[in-house]
């Protein structure tokens, strides 16, 4: 058995070299620690990309404006939604509607403040609670009605998009004046969104790895029947994770509105959601349930943002970027599948 334990998939070195064992030198032991982590691959990729763009386009890439743009405005929205998607993917579900909660939430805030005279804070809180409600509906349709979550959230996503376009007549709106002070630390401050992303990553890392909720989420996705037999209320776990994801979608929608200083009906949609799922997948979260990492999704978000931002700085058109993304998804998925096979082989 001991040799099987050593042959864990995580023990495969990400750089292709032999796993550095017997850490007599500090670098070797650091590498072997790194190699055992599921997040190792995406960590190495993130570092390599940052170094590449940092050295090659030194003055523009490493400028403070660009770094805050990269981390705060490009990476953070991806990371924050990805946190929710990781929880959902682990328990065997997905949320395609998160990006449309993103679109509608700031409009809701605008309607409440400008049309109904609600003060800024309650309006923001109600907009976030709207995310909770959408998550509940997604949970209800998936758990109680038995729809696949792919279909559920495809449907609720369209409804939300229609709701946004109908109520806004597809015109952008201005940020309500009463939110000015709040908006600063919510999203318009240079590093605000990145700080949110860091804090949320830390919190939900703990939730996933150190709480009953996280353990039961893994159990639900790993073996739903078994989890139920142990008395875990798997339906409740799914409701909760749908609610988490939608709420994070609403949060990012509000943040982006504050940052761009406009409420735009074309913001959000499928793109941020698909970026988030991409970040989760290249971070090492399997689509089959039972496995996933928050740190990996965080790093995945950094990788995506670095590509988006770096190619932009390099003056390369955004069009071929999608080719890179597609390849990244496929490569990381192949890696995931291979790891699963190694795992299965280790069982013999």
């Amino acid at each position, binding site marked *: 058995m001991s040799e099987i334990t050593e042959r864990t998939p995580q023990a495969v070195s990400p750089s292709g070299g032999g796993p550095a064992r017997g850490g007599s030198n500090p670098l070797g032991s650091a590498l072997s620690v790194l190699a055992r982590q599921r997040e190792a691959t995406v960590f190495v990729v993130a570092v390599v990309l940052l170094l590449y763009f940092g050295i090659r386009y030194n003055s523009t890439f490493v400028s403070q404006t660009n770094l805050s743009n990269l981390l705060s405005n490009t990476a953070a929205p991806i990371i924050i939604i990805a946190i929710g998607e990781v929880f959902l993917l682990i328990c065997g579900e997905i949320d395609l509607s998160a990006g449309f909660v993103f679109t509608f939430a700031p409009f809701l805030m605008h309607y409440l403040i400008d049309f109904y005279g609600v003060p800024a804070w309650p309006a923001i809180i109600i907009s976030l609670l709207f995310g909770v409600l959408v998550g509940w509906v997604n949970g209800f349709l998936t758990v109680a009605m038995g729809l696949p979550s792919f279909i559920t959230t495809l449907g609720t996503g369209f409804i939300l998009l229609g709701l946004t376009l109908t109520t806004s007549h597809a015109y952008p709106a201005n940020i309500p004046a009463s939110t000015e002070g709040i908006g600063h630390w919510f999203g318009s401050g240079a590093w605000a969104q990145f700080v949110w992303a860091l804090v949320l990553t830390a919190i939900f890392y703990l939730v996933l790895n150190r709480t009953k909720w996280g353990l039961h989420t893994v*159990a639900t996705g*790993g073996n739903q029947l078994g989890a139920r037999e142990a008395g875990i209320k798997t339906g409740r776990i799914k409701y909760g994770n749908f609610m988490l994801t939608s709420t994070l979608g609403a949060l990012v929608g509000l943040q982006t509105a504050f940052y761009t200083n406009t409420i735009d009906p074309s913001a959000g949609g499928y793109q941020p959601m698909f970026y988030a799922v991409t970040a989760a997948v290249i971070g090492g979260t399997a689509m089959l349930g039972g496995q996933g990492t928050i740190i990996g999704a965080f790093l995945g978000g950094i990788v995506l943002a670095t590509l988006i931002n770096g190619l932009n700085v390099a003056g390369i058109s955004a069009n071929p970027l999608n080719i890179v993304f597609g390849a990244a998804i496929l490569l990381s998925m192949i890696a995931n599948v291979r790891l699963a096979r190694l795992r299965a082989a280790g069982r013999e």
Partner: protein
Amino acid sequence: MSAEPTPSPATTGAVADASGDVLRVEHISKRFGAVRALHDVNLHLGQGEVLGLLGDNGAGKSTLIKIICGFQQPTSGKIILEGQEITLKSVDHARSLGIDTVYQDLALINELTVYHNMFLNREQTRWSLLSNRRMRRTAQEQLDRIGVDIPSVDAEVAKLSGGQRQAIAVARAVTSNAKVLLLDEPLAAMGAKEGAMILELVKDLKQQGEVSIIMIMHNYGQALEVCDRINLLQHGEITFDKLANDTSVQELNDIVIEEYRRALLERQQQEGQQSA
């Protein structure tokens, strides 16, 4: 065929007369529409006893187990746990009363470690955070105490062998304070070495005498080796109840061969009538 009920053997010093039984099943019948799955089944289980439940496929073993574990309700009859009649509403309910089942398709979570599986839904926490160190240590102690040998409680269950997984599942049920443990073919699909490990585990549990066990088994040799008493189910009825020491593989084989012979004869007669 001998069907006289024998008194439960005293395995751990406790005198197991009728009132000392931890579990009694009385006059249980179960019908699925026109199909009679169980008919007037009586079964008793003494404290610390290991009862082997044998029988052909379709004889009603699984139905009986499902009724005792709360998964199905009997059409008629009583279940008495420690002298009190109980009506089991669900598997959860049965478990809360101390009747726990280890299924063939194990309810373990592959992606979690051994100790997280051992504590699944009974996790120890401190300030809402999992006390992993405490659970790990307790799991190790519990496994050592009941003699389960695995490489590490930190291993993911996916990396364990079938026998090791079965052992973890049994250990989990035992450590959740089960009084009655139902094992549904614990040795199915297991090699000799693995099977021996589970038999050893059951023997250890028997010696400790804290939990009483009903095992569905197919291999008579193994059943006689580990069980105190053997019950045989045929066509939904218990037709045989003897102490393991008072019977033999030969006797059990003869009964079953007899059953096959009779089935074959009936079939030939039917065919004869049809052709006549």
